[in-house]
């Protein structure tokens, strides 16, 4: 009788909840974001008003709950109150562990959103040995960014870099000084493919309907296998749908940029299922940074369509099915002219990702995820010389990746979580620049333990064994420890390993750039035969001694060391300091193996270089006043090739001399002459002011990004390394701002964004657009 009335009310409002005489029980433990039990938290079933407080061990039990779908609210002092959903069957004993987020960590953007169960990955990417960060939906919305590259280039230690030597469309993400090819791009925990000479163009991904972006800096092959040498960027699409709603948004601004979004989402089948579908249309006229171009752009114009969605269905209290899908298509035509010599550069690409996931929750802390993932990427990009009608081949291929994986996670004593996975993947590549279709396959097993040893000490360790069809087996372990001697200080240290198997290009490429200098690049597997062809055709003037050393490539390997601390001297201030050192060996690089009669180089790939990428990463966040947060970051980076340093030190080899234009002569090079690898800035920094005035629904941001000078290419004379007399891109500041107001009872939002307010341009940065001002409108239905 006690709850008859609330039940009646509930029946009237939620007619899908069926009252049944046989009752069920909900129990579980409330923990905080560090896994500690939260005592004294109030756990209430909203619909019935039933509930109670958690015990010293954070446990709660709610008896005699009728079968049905409920919302359960958890309130605890010092934590955000959250609401979770639960569906109960008659006589069921539902175990519902709940995690609450500390309110003190308002600072920490990572924890603003309540952490929910992730159906796509049982491993929490913030619980890996290497340092990680999260960019939340809220942050992305505040910035007003449209494409993924725009979001990432404002993060500490990340840069978007053009790869001039791979063509005007080759652009990618640099992380801690590693080229784009060394960072794995994941969508909901699964790898995305489709690279242009290793460069992953992130502008093909819309940030609409991205829940958050997780970034791990440092070798992460332990969990993700090959390619995760610099780190990982994981794009998490919307996972949880709680109510029926629709949203439409449009933005318009400089360069005729249009960004339009339409989203619909709803629970269905009495709350057992839920799903959303979202569409995005984006277009831009592109931007030209090159004053010599009379027509055309250096950041090419394009039109892109994206359709993505997810469907979730609870088969039973134990099993849930998840389907995710994404299809994106991009079309771009760049008609270029240098007051004459017109060319047409055309790109068409299609990108498909799909997953079917079965999540099994066996209770008592044991969960299993079984997944099949497929991705297909195809691109066709060619440049037509409109004078001669000759086609200059760009990038033409179709790539498939299939992956099956079973993951299991078990929690013991609320303090040890072990997650393991086993799987296999098969990849095919059909590229015009290779002879015939190519494929490779690998199988893997990994395991990670996350152990909270005591209140002060936590450890995360793991390993991965991978067997590759070409390179055999490899083992990549990792280990991290954190120690909290006092409440305000956490000390962290980690070591992890990374590897990257040679890509198809390094094995099979047969490419002569007839338009851009006439150099030839030969993959190691094709090298002998192709060199002979060139020799027979009488094109070769000299074959260098190293040609005999072209052989089977070995995977590149790295060891990442990371150590630092997080200091929280006051609830409103937090600072993170982290030193990193990546030691890379068997680094694959091209080296000249022969000269053609006209001097053009013939290249092949070698495991020659030993490089190190080392530096310091600092981040802080400060709530300066109510609603005003100031956050910033800084990265110091030394990215150098050891071979160059050794040659300079010994005064022998290719790098022993430098031409000093002031002396007008060669002189012995010094270690200090060597700036490092091209495209790497020694200093990068950013600061972000975000202001939120809740009563008026106004939020605003102002961000300043600095990128220090970096090497562009050699000038002066050819000595194979960046010396002080070479071409550098000057350091620069980019200023961005946005302001948003929420109207009509939170149904409508208007936003004004300004990127690159100073309109900073440099022809050495072809991909950096000038000032962009956009106005946007968002409307939420229901």
């Amino acid at each position, binding site marked *: 009788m006690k709850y008859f009335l609330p039940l009646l009310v509930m029946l009237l409002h939620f007619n899908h909840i069926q009252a049944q005489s046989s009752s069920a029980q909900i129990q579980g433990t409330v923990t905080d974001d560090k896994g500690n039990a939260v005592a004294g938290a109030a756990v209430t079933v909203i619909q019935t008003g039933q509930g109670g407080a958690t015990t010293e061990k954070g446990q709660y039990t709610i008896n005699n709950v009728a079968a049905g779908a409920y919302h359960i609210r958890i309130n605890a002092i010092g934590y955000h109150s959250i609401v979770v959903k639960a569906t109960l069957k008659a006589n069921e004993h539902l175990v519902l562990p709940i995690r609450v987020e500390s309110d003190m960590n308002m600072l920490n953007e990572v924890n603003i959103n309540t952490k929910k169960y992730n159906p796509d990955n049982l491993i929490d990417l913030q619980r890996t040995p290497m340092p990680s960060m999260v960019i939340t939906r809220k942050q992305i919305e505040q910035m007003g960014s449209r494409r993924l590259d725009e979001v990432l280039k404002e993060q500490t230690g990340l840069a978007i870099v053009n790869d001039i*030597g791979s063509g005007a469309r080759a652009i990618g993400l640099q992380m801690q000084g590693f080229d784009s090819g060394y960072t794995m791009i994941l969508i909901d925990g699964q790898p995305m493919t489709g690279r242009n000479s290793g460069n992953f163009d992130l502008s093909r991904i819309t940030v609409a309907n991205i829940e958050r972006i997780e970034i791990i800096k440092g070798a992460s092959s332990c969990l993700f296998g090959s390619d995760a040498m610099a780190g990982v960027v994981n794009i998490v699409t919307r996972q949880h749908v709680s109510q029926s709603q629709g949203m439409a948004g449009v933005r318009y601004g400089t360069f005729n940029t249009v960004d339009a979004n339409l989203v619909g989402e709803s629970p269905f089948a009495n709350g057992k299922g839920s799903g959303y579908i979202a569409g995005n249309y984006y277009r831009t006229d592109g931007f030209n940074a090159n004053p*010599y171009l009379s027509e055309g752009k250096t950041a090419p114009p394009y039109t892109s369509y994206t359709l993505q969605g997810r469907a979730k269905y609870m088969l039973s209290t134990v099993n849930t099915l998840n389907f995710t899908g994404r299809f994106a298509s991009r079309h771009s035509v760049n008609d*270029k002219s240098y007051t004459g010599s017109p060319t047409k550069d055309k790109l068409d690409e299609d990108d498909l990702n799909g997953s079917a996931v079965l999540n099994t929750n066996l209770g008592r802390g044991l969960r299993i995820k079984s997944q099949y993932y497929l991705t297909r990427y195809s691109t066709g990009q060619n440049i037509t010389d409109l004078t001669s009608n000759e086609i200059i081949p760009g990038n033409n291929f179709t790539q498939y990746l299939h992956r099956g994986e079973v993951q299991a996670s078990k929690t013991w004593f609320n303090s040890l979580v072990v997650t393991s996975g086993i799987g296999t993947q098969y990849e095919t590549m059909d590229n015009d620049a290779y002879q015939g279709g190519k494929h490779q396959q690998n199988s893997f097993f990994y395991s990670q333990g996350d152990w909270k040893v005591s209140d002060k000490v936590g450890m995360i360790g793991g390993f991965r064994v991978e067997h590759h069809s070409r390179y055999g087996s490899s083992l990549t372990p990792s280990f991290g420890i954190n120690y909290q001697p006092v409440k305000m200080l956490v000390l962290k240290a980690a070591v992890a390993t990374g590897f990257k198997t040679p890509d198809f290009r390094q094995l099979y490429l047969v490419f002569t750039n007839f338009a*851009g200098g*006439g150099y030839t690049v030969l993959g190691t597997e094709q090298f002998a035969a192709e060199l002979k062809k060139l020799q027979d055709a009488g094109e070769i003037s000299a074959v260098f001694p190293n040609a005999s050393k072209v052989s089977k490539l070995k995977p590149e390997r790295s060891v990442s060391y990371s150590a630092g601390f997080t200091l929280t001297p006051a609830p409103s201030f937090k600072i993170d300091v982290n030193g990193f050192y990546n030691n890379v060996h068997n680094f694959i690089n091209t080296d000249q193996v022969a*000269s053609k009669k*006209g001097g053009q180089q013939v290249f092949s790939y070698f495991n020659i270089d030993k490089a190190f990428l080392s530096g310091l990463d600092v981040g802080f966040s400060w709530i300066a006043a109510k609603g005003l947060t100031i956050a910033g970051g800084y990265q110091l980076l030394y990215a150098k090739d050891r071979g160059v340093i050794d040659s300079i030190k010994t005064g022998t080899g290719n790098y022993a001399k430098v031409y000093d234009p002031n002396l007008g002569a060669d002189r012995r090079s010094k270690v200090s002459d060597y700036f490092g690898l091209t495209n790497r800035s020694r200093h990068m920094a950013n600061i972000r002011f975000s202001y939120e005035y809740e009563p008026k629904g106004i939020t605003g941001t102002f961000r300043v990004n600095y990128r220090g000078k970096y090497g562009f290419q050699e*000038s002066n004379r050819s000595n194979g390394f960046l010396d002080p007399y070479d071409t550098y891109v000057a350091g620069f500041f980019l200023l961005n701002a946005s302001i948003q107001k929420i109207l009509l009872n939170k149904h409508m939002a208007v936003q004004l964004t300004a990127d690159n307010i100073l309109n900073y341009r440099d022809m*050495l940065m072809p991909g950096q657009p000038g000032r962009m001002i956009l106005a946007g409108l968002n409307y939420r239905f229901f």
Partner: protein
Amino acid sequence: MKMIKYNYLKTLLIAVTSTLLISSCTKDQVKPQLQDGKSTIVNDLPGDVGKTINTGFRTFYFSFSTNAKVDSSQKKTSQWDIAFAKEYNSYVSINNGTNDASYGFGGTGKGSMVVVNKAYDQVTEAPADDVFTTSSITSAGWDSGSGDASGWYFYDLKTHLAIPVKNRTYVLRTADGKYAKLEMVSMYKGAPAVVTDLNWPAPYFTFRYYVQQDGSRNLSTKD
């Protein structure tokens, strides 16, 4: 109190934004000044444009005295001083009737060339005849980077773009025996200070030269 703070911030934001919006900046890549009052500057002389390494490039001939291309039918005459041959027409060659490596072999040209590792304006005198006689080069193009290399450009290993060798000047004896100096500046259209596009139109030659008309060895182009 809150309102005041909010208004203050808003005003500040508007002030800062409007200041920034009216200012703008670019980083310009500055080209070197080629004019010296004496030398002849040739801008964007087109080579066999539209051709690729695959199809080959047709050699063309250039006269210092007319500052123009010379028809290939005049190959065996002293009408031209330098030829642009091979890949991208980037090999600058002399007109010498007696040297079989010259495109003018069998003709009347007296040309010869010597490489000088000095900036163009610092080359003030042509070397003695025996230096020309013993000079091992008849053309200059790609530079291998080795110590005795004499090319006028090299390829950057990452960007694959041709970059002119700094402080390298060629002293020539023209087809009719006068002394001259030559600096090759660029093979890309517009001769930008830095080439930023792998498909930047080429070959378009920018270069400057000075011919001493009085027959002496004085090549000073300073006033």
